[in-house]
């Protein structure tokens, strides 16, 4: 029993550490890719190839002057970034990072909590994510911040609907809401039975919605600098701003992990059962495979950011309500028909 608890604690600590490190280096990758796409070098001064740039950025944010506006609501002003960070880190609890490893005959699954409503948990935490933006934006007592916060809220609510509908179609095939079961179902056909093949439209909708939920370009209207100065974090300085920026990268990492798990086989990789390796090695390779998928998705997020221009607000709403929702409902109907046909 104790080995399980110790293992869980190690797992939680390492997942937390890994998501922070990934988020940290995503900031560097973002700037490097931006440099590449715009035909310039990107940061290259701190350390070899600019590898220490995230540390320098973090140190800069930590040591900057802490400013709390006089007219702001102090408690909520501080609660905003904390909530953003909290909700960003919560989702990782239900993501299966690997199969299981065996220590002294104990089977230790590489997942913090295998609850049987895993997808709903992810969805719930995602829908809470908007509070960080809203509370921070309102507490700043600044018109631009408030506008950013309201944009964030309406955007999140609009895109949550189509996201939920695309998940419903997926759940109709899987017959389970547990993230681990869904991943295991994708291990057939030499670990290549990925749900993206059965749910291409659903995946597309989910992908677009996760861009909107993480406030990434082309949906980054809450922090649209051409109209709203800095959006909801206009008044934030120092590490509080750092938390908001950091939460965005953690969100990106987590939603990449969710997409990889639900649609791209999670820790399954081609020919995973045919290698003849021991369980522990296969599990570790699986974790590696999941991380490769996640990094590819993060790259995709950045690729889109430096390629596609930002939407106008009415275009964003039209896409969400008039295109994605009907498409998602159509997807549900088609999936239902196919499921009935093959029963």
């Amino acid at each position, binding site marked *: 029993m104790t080995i399980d608890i110790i293992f869980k604690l190690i797992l939680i600590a390492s997942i937390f550490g890994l998501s922070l490190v990934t988020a940290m280096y995503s900031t560097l990758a973002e700037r490097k890719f931006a440099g590449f796409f715009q035909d310039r070098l990107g940061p290259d001064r701190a350390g070899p190839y600019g590898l220490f740039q995230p540390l320098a950025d973090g140190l800069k944010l930590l040591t900057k002057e802490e400013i709390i506006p006089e007219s702001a609501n102090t408690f909520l002003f501080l609660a905003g970034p904390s909530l953003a960070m909290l909700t960003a880190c919560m989702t990782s609890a239900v993501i299966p990072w690997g199969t299981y490893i065996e220590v002294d005959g104990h089977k230790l699954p590489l997942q913090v909590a295998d609850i049987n409503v895993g997808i*709903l*948990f992810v969805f719930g935490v995602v829908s809470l994510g908007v509070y960080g933006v809203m509370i921070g934006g309102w507490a700043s007592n600044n018109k631009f911040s408030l506008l950013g*916060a309201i944009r964030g809220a309406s955007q999140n609510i609009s895109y949550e609907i189509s996201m939920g509908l695309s998940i419903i179609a997926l759940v109709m095939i899987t017959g389970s*809401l547990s993230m681990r079961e869904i991943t295991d179902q994708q291990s057939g056909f030499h670990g290549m039975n990925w749900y993206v093949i059965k749910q291409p439209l659903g995946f597309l909708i989910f992908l677009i919605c996760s861009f909107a939920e993480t406030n990434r370009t082309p949906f980054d209207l809450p922090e649209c600098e051409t109209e709203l100065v800095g959006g909801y974090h206009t008044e934030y300085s120092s590490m509080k701003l750092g938390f908001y920026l950091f939460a965005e990268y953690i969100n990106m990492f987590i939603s990449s992990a969710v997409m990889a798990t639900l649609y791209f086989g999670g820790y399954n990789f081609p020919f995973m059962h045919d290698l003849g390796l021991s369980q522990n090695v296969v599990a570790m390779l699986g974790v590696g495979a999941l991380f490769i998928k996640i990094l590819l998705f993060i790259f995709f997020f950045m690729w889109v950011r430096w390629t596609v221009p930002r939407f106008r607000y009415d275009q964003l709403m039209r896409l969400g309500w008039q295109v994605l929702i009907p498409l998602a409902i159509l997807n549900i109907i088609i999936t239902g028909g196919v499921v009935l046909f093959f029963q």
Partner: protein
Amino acid sequence: MDKMFYFLAFLAILSALMVVLVKNPIHSILYLLVTFTSITGHYILFNAQFLAAVNFIVYMGAIMVLFLFVIMFLNLNGETEPQKSTLVKFAGVISGGLLLLVMVASFKKAVTIPLNTEVDTQIGLIKNLGMVLFKDYALPFELASVLFLVAMIGAVMLAKKDWK
């Protein structure tokens, strides 16, 4: 488990009281959020995972966001709050008092039921819940969903001003 229950119950009641006691409407909503969080905790104690998740998503994730959204838009505060007339205040006190009377009357008749340990604790899991809803109570469930659909269409109709 017992301590957890008392903690959650205390939190729920305290934050529910704060909802009505604090002056700032935004703070009220945030306290209401805490109330819903503790109710979600109660559902988890009951092993009603689906109900907990749905409470989380629907109440905390959607309805409360909309409340917050509307109140932020209206920007209610002490100065802009409409002053209520004495008549309205009296009406409020009387109807509130009547509600209290009804509640006191019903609680007076209440008896403590002995704890039933034979209850199926797996009933709240999504599989069992789905079986119950779609087999035993299929018709009421479908009727309720039609009701929601009608309400949704009605909301769209009302929101659309230039309806021809």
